[in-house]
């Protein structure tokens, strides 16, 4: 299905990533945005307030983040596409309802413009330390999808993709962006509506009396209905059967939660998008996502000028994690280098898939800035020279870390 022309603000813009994500949501057909504005995601709200009315999209400023995400879930069950936007502490407050959304198989999008944490952290500066939270933040077993864009153009493109994935797999989709990309202003091209593919909602169209809201199609995803259409709808956060009625026996728990997890795991090949470059004969592969993957290219270029065989694997989709790709590369390469703006999150998933076959080096960054490309090239160089197999994750000492340590900031011995 093509995008609705009235939703698409076709043109060439010079806008920041937040605004581009807002325009992407409009193009995807998002009709309700509920949120509680928080730095550094506020520009996305502003874009919605300015342009939303032109395309019939409603923005509600809710009383808090609990209200925001709940309004989004409600809007989806009333039949529209919906999104919430947040950052930092706001994201933490939304955790319970992300699980609720996953349990109800509610297709919605959450845009998280990550900022420096923990707690209030550094509200106006960048971070990538919510990555594990995005995967494991709500209680219980569930799977969702997370995407990490690296430019305002990608904020537009991948917000549309996020909506499409949410509809296709009926699950929450996180856009795990960050302050640097959110506040970065660049050229953004918004094409004509007929160039934009939109995934329609999987509405049930059969006889009303036969409708079972949680009876899956062969791809494990059930058809959805909207409240008020006359179909029998009972939705609950409790483990439920195909009718949506609560059940508490072991067998149903196994059956229902298994499917919730498997509908993502077994469709991984179709969901995951990676950008792989020169990994074929590489000694070292840099694995990164979001803004760090963009800065990493600079580091890779510098390392290549020194004659090091280095490839790059960019995780456009961070969750579900591309286990098979890492397992496969681990057999061929000497080491993985993982720059991320945190003290180690995705690097542990890389290590998990390595099975000790390749060394794994983390280039940490505490946030409020992005990596120095020279740190990335140095880490690549030392990983290429290392002949010993090293167990666990090795931490590369960055220039910044060295300064901090020279000033004597260390634990008492």
């Amino acid at each position: 299905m093509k995008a609705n022309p009235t939703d698409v603000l076709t043109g060439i813009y010079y806008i920041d990533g937040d605004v581009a994500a807002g325009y992407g949501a409009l193009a995807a057909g998002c009709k309700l945005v509920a949120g509680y504005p928080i730095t550094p995601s506020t520009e996305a709200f502003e874009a919605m307030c300015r342009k939303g009315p032109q395309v019939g999209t409603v923005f509600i400023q809710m009383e808090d983040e609990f209200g925001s995400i709940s309004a989004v879930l409600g809007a989806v069950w009333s039949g529209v596409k919906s999104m919430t936007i947040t950052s930092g502490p706001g994201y933490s407050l939304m955790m319970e309802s992300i699980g609720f959304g996953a349990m109800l198989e509610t297709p919605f999008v959450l845009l998280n413009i990550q900022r420096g944490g923990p707690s209030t952290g550094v509200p106006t500066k960048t971070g990538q330390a919510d990555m594990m939270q995005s995967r494991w933040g709500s209680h219980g077993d569930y799977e969702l999808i997370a995407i990490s864009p690296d430019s305002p153009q990608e904020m537009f493109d991948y917000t549309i993709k996020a909506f499409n994935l949410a509809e296709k797999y009926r699950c929450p989709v996180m856009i795990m962006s960050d302050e640097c990309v959110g506040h970065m202003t660049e050229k953004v091209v918004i094409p004509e509506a007929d160039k934009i593919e939109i995934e329609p909602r999987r509405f049930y169209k059969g006889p009303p009396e036969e409708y079972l809201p949680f009876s899956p199609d062969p791809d494990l995803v059930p058809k959805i209905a909207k409240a008020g259409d006359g179909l029998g709808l009972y939705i609950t956060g409790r483990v439920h059967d195909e009718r949506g009625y609560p059940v508490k026996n072991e067998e149903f728990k196994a059956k229902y939660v298994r499917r919730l997890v498997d509908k993502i795991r077994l469709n991984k090949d179709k969901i995951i998008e990676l950008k792989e470059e020169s990994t074929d004969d590489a000694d070292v592969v840099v694995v990164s996502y979001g803004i760090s993957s963009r800065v990493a290219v600079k580091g890779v270029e510098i390392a290549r000028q020194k004659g090091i065989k280095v490839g790059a694997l960019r995780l456009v989709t961070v969750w579900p994690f591309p286990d098979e790709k890492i397992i496969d590369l681990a057999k061929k390469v000497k080491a993985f280098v993982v720059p991320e703006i945190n003290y180690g999150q995705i690097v542990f998933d890389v290590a998990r898939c390595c099975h000790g076959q390749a060394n794994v080096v983390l280039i940490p960054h505490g946030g409020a800035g992005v990596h120095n490309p020279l740190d990335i090239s140095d880490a690549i160089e030392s990983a290429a020279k290392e002949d010993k197999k090293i167990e666990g994750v090795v931490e590369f000492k960055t220039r910044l870390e060295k300064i901090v340590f020279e000033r004597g900031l260390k634990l008492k011995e």
Partner: protein
Amino acid sequence: MAEIRFAGYGGQGIIRSGIIVGRAASIYDDKFSTMSQSFGPEARGGACSSQLVVSESKVLYPYLTAAGILVAMSQAGYDKFEPELSEKGLLLYDEDLVKPKASRGNITPFAIPATRFAEQLGKKIVANVVILGFFTAITKVVTYESMKKAIPDSVPEKAIDLNLKAFERGYNFGLEVLKKQKEPQ
């Protein structure tokens, strides 16, 4: 590649300046440009700045590594960002608002009474566009033609004429300064 810092105080259109030049470069000159701005209390009345990277290829590192050009519209902005200006950099400043220190390295200073010109044109608020005209003539990071297209895209419709006049004023002043420099002393 050009790495540019615009510095001034909130309300002078410092961030808008970065947007106008960035837009001219990436939309009309077909280059790549990335603009990042300062946030927080400093962007709301105090010292304020934006940084712009203009390149022939995709900008990978979004921030400045060594500023080649500093456009200073306030003393505080100058004091804060002068140290990051590279030794061969260009310094453009409003001569009524900034008193530069003794020049270091091979930094070339270019002065313009941008705010005074803007007042003569009728509105102080266009001082940033006056200095953008000056910037265009001196640095040649963006073309005159592209700036003439980017300005109307970036200001309210009723202010387009005034802004274009302000741009011309700064641009012509820049050409005069360059001409004088070339004349034998």
